[in-house]
């Protein structure tokens, strides 16, 4: 076995603008969007007809027929049809997890190049048959004679026609992610104002990044969209203050503006060894340094559902002998403004850091001017599995732009999970 590892380079990325649910991409499937994102990447980095090491991808909301979503997207793309591909699933951490998996293979020398990707649609969502109807149809299908088949089908009742629509809820608690986050916001005393301020910063940063052309080589227009459909660059705290809370009851602090909207989109990131990049004349934007995942017990121990990144980051920091302040940029996925704020408060809090993390002291504050400098999910939208690729590509480019530095990436995921990583240039 290979005991040596080698540096892994982030070479670029591509995504389609993210659309609001039932917006511009209402008719597009996951495969349509993922194929488009891949082809944009292929075109930008001259990979047409090439076989890359592998393509990893995934989608959180997926039709049963999309069991091989990534491979099917590859076959529909301009990549060589001999490119192997597989689907990955770790809820909203999927996109970053594809990066981690392929980066590790590159580091081990198993492959020289890879594309990490993801897509999600909440418009073309998989609606499943009612379980009772499904049982009847299976019985009818298994029937040996037409009489038996009719007998089985005769059991169908009007109530069986009601479909199973996927819900954004935790199966073990029955609470939506927003309701879980409202509990966290209450536990950490997060105010409406703080959340609205974070949301406004997200929109303003994203708007400014578009205006200065930051995304020119990070996305390709799709179905008439050139910018993320959710972007409101003219957002102000005053405007947001008018919205009614949507989670946490009447006293709630979470609104449609400081929570991410359901969205559609796809993203892809190109990774390779430094040798592979050099051979192809590709510039190394950043190196992939390390990653960590964590999960919390939000069922029994009642930890906040989206607090896992707060656990993952300190473990990764310790392994790399780094402090929380040793970063030039922070990319913290804004599932909800409250999630980001709870995470930051937890890291500043001696109680959390000692009692829950087992550290001697609090990790401390971060410089908020370094947080999500080119916008975050509140402004872009959050097509679940596509968010990791959006963040990795933009983070690598931002490091390249500033000519060096280090970025911390943190993404929370359903099921009480967190996926985090470090990029360096």
């Amino acid at each position, binding site marked *: 076995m290979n005991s040596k590892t080698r540096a892994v380079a982030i070479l670029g990325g591509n995504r389609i603008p993210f659309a609001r649910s039932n917006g511009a991409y209402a008719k597009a499937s996951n495969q349509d969007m993922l194929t488009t994102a891949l082809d944009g990447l292929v075109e930008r980095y001259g990979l047409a007809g090439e076989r890359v090491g592998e393509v990893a991808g995934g989608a959180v909301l997926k039709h049963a027929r999309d069991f091989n979503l990534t491979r099917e997207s590859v076959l529909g793309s301009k990549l060589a049809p001999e490119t192997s591909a597989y689907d990955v699933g770790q809820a909203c951490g999927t996109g970053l997890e594809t990066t981690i998996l392929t980066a590790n293979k590159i580091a081990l020398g198993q492959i020289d190049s890879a594309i990490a990707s993801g897509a999600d649609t909440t418009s073309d969502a998989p609606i499943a048959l009612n379980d009772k109807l499904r049982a009847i149809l299976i019985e009818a299908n298994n029937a040996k004679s037409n009489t038996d088949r009719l007998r089985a089908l005769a059991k169908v009742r009007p109530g069986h026609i009601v479909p199973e629509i996927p819900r954004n809820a935790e199966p073990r608690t029955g609470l939506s992610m927003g309701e879980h986050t409202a509990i966290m*916001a*209450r*536990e*950490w*005393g*997060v*105010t*409406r*104002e703080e959340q609205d301020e974070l949301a406004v910063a997200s929109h303003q940063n994203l708007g400014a990044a578009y205006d200065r052309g930051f995304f020119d080589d990070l996305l390709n227009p799709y179905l008439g969209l050139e910018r993320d459909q959710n972007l409101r660059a003219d957002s102000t705290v005053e405007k947001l203050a008018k919205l009614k809370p949507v989670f*946490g*009851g009447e*006293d709630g*602090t979470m609104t449609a503006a400081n929570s991410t909207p359901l969205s559609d989109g796809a993203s892809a990131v190109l990774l390779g060894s430094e040798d592979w990049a050099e051979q192809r004349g590709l510039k190394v934007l950043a190196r992939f340094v390390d990653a960590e995942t964590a999960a919390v017990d939000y069922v029994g121990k009642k930890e906040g559902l989206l607090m896992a990144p707060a656990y993952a980051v300190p473990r990764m920091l310790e392994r790399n002998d780094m402090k929380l302040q040793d970063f030039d940029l922070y990319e913290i996925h804004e599932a909800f403004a409250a999630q980001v704020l709870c995470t930051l*408060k937890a890291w500043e*809090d*001696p*109680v959390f*850091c*000692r*009692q*829950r993390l087992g550290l001697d002291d*609090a990790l401390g504050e971060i410089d908020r001017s370094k947080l999500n400098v080119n916008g975050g999910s509140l402004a872009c939208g959050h097509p679940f599995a596509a968010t990791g690729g959006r963040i990795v590509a933009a983070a690598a480019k931002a490091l390249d732009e500033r000519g060096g530095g280090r970025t911390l990436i943190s993404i929370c995921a359903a099921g009480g999970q967190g996926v985090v990583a470090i990029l360096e240039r």
Partner: protein
Amino acid sequence: MPTDRYSQIVNSRIGGLVAGPVGLPQPVELDRFEPGQPVISGEVLLGAAPGARLADPVAHALAGAGATVRTPLTDVVRAAAGNAGLDAAVWNPDAPAEARFKALVFDASGIDDSTQLAALRDFFQPTIRRVERSGRVIVLGTQPELCGDPREATAQRALEGFTRSVGKEVRRGAAAQLLYVAPGAEAGLDATLRFFLSPRSAYVSGQVIRVAAAVADVPEFDWGRPLGGKVALVTGASRGIGAEVARVLARDGAHVVGLDVPPAAEELEDLTGEIGGSALALDITEPDAPQRIADHFANEHEGIDVVVHNAGVTRDKTLGKMDEERWSQLLDINLSSQERIDEQLLERELIRANGRIVSVSSISGIAGNAGQTNYATSKAGVIGMVQSLAPVVAKRGVTVNAVAPGFIETAMTKAMPLATREAGRRMNSMVQGGLPVDVAETIAWLAGPGAASVNGNVVRVCGQSLLGA
């Protein structure tokens, strides 16, 4: 059950419908301690003014008590909670949601100038209406007489008016106390804080407690049986408050020697039989009583740990009609005999290290009462005795304190005329009378091994009575 007929009526559905709109006092049923209960059920909110000195010991005490704690996201209390191993959630008044607290604990020891008293309003204004039924408000500070700087002493003295007013505002059976903790005596806070957080202090409110240097090292003890292995004397133990004191001390692990006059011997033996104690029937005013008591403890127990002077009588008459016997007999029972017993026990060095003397005074001794010149004289004398004896016995590792009951539901108060009785019952922050067990629990706290830092205090058990406040 509520304590009296009126409480039963206004707490019934129909009675409540009438009492509310008409503005009649609405006493709530007070939480009272049951063995096995946690120190406090419900969330404790711990706050502190900048520069607070007591946040660390308070957080440790709360952790030891197994309390569920929340704190504002301020450095001093978060650091204290972290040090104490408390997994405390956060409270932000700007995102209050539906928070409710069983207790509000505020460390005001950092306030060293009157201009900083605003910290009290900042902490309590958004939280005071979130205190649950039978809740607790505890403010901590430094004894003004121990503050070096006049401005600091002024600000710390101001806490008293604040806390007493909170006690009167908070209602629904909630109580408010001010605990002054001397610099260096922080470690001795534990038992006192637990007592005032717990339902044991049900009928104690508006009190100012001074916690100072411990009179002796406190050995490890079992919080569930703090008086395990201790021997206690309770005078006047056959009935009323005395009987309840004997029961509570026995519950806390003590071997109780109950004392009462020979005519009450049968009742006394019933009680001591019930609690596994022993009976000593004698008249404390007899000349040889102190010696016989001392002999009993020397021979049977090789000493004594807790002395509770509870025996007392009333012989009411206005002063112009006060005959010599009423006066002298009462003074002898209520005060002079206590002095003689204490002297004898101390002289023969029978009170062991970490010993306790607790004497029962009365709010009549503080406020005075028409028709009770004799009684009030004796009960004020008890206060004088406690305060003068405290520094003397401290040298032997012994504390002496007094409890001053207000209106307690006993046979004595049942015999009062209706109007006087109702006034006594309602004219306090709890708008009801206390129970003998409320006095007993307070005595048990003062008698406990953890109270080595409480000496020379007079603690009223009066529901914050308007009398003598």
